[in-house]
């Protein structure tokens, strides 16, 4: 008997192509798993509308689940029905983001102001003595910061 939790567990092995320490499950983008007999339909929600990794992640889900012989037809769709926010990232996901050298997004993303993003702790030394250089970084989901304590430039995962 194939269960949703079984599929969810397997999908933890599919990692974000741009932040390979975090799984798509911990990133919070797997918003639906429907099982009909042995067929599996996975629904993903986009992180950023313009994220180029979106289609890649759809393919990665199909390819990964296809490696399990007991599963039937695998289909994936992207839907905006659930709006992704960084609040959907799990605690495990936060740890994984930090492991990659990025500052995890501040919780409660609905009240974002420049001041809130300014107050990002350094992922290397945990200091709050940091300054934001730009709300736009090398990918859509990252901002640029500098730690005045350990004198290290770092990137943050933008709360959205």
């Amino acid at each position, binding site marked *: 008997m194939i269960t949703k939790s079984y599929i969810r567990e397997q999908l933890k092995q599919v990692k974000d192509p741009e932040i390979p320490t975090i799984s798509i499950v911990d990133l919070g983008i797997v918003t639906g798993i429907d099982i009909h007999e042995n067929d599996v339909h996975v629904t993903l929600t*986009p992180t*950023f*509308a*313009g*994220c180029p990794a979106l289609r890649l992640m759809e393919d990665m889900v199909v390819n990964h689940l296809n490696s399990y012989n007991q599963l039937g037809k695998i289909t994936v769709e992207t*839907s*905006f*029905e659930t*709006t*992704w*926010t960084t609040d959907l990232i799990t605690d495990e996901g936060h740890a994984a983001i930090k492991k990659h050298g990025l500052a995890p997004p501040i919780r409660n*993303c609905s009240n*974002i*102001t*420049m001041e809130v993003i300014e107050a990002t702790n350094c992922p290397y030394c945990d200091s709050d003595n940091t300054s934001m*250089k*730009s*709300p*736009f*970084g*090398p990918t*859509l989901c990252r901002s*640029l910061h500098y730690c005045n304590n350990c004198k290290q430039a770092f990137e943050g995962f*933008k709360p*959205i």
Partner: protein
Amino acid sequence: MLLKQEAENPQITYNSNKMNSIDALKELLYKIADDQLIIGHRNSEWTGLGPILEEDIAFSSMAQDKIGQSEHIYNLLHQLGEADADTVAFTRNSAQFHSSQFVELPIGDYSFSLIRHFLFDFAEYLRFESLKSSAYEPLAQVSKKFFGEIKYHTMHANTWVNQLGKGNEESHTKMQDSLNYAWNYALGMFEQGPAEDLLISENIFIGEKALQDVWLGTITPLLTQSNLTIPAQENWKPIFGGRFGKHSQHLQPLLEEMTEVYSIDPSADW
């Protein structure tokens, strides 16, 4: 119900007596997506040329956001019977675009790009804020997503407008001159659609007039805080026409550049 109806006619006609709510909805979606595609392309022209590295990255990131968002709106149009996103984006000529003339203007001086970014992005932010509660559910869903993204665009715009508006005499003069030049074009964003009443009565969209009022109420205090002055109201002469396919000489060359690769090889993949 609107959602269940089949599109009767994929071509939009501008005779408001003959327009049904599907046509009116398509017109709304086209103008949103076309504005995003064209401003996205203009933003991308700063890639490699930004005055400082962070600004280069900022305009490039915003370009990626806008073009990505436009694709999702074109997908909604495709679901309503229009051609697929690439065909719609890359095969129309300028007279078929519903974008405002404001977004097609060349990037100009950096002060103009910043002022346009400020005026356009606050309008877009407020448009999507109102569309979050649109009765057309697929549009409400994407609006919730885009709203969070565009918040960063408005924060970025406001930071720079404030710094340069209050900077030194040179920066203030440049920003004020750009605001004066941009103003009537910006008002042109709020050109009413041919059958907007249908959208308002079906709670799909609040209408351009209501949107313009919210926009003015939002940007006026921000500009004042930045020591910048909106032109006197007796001089307001909105530059309309874009929503009906009337464009300046700047749009067609932009489209030719944007579609250059597609025109050579429509099947090219990259």
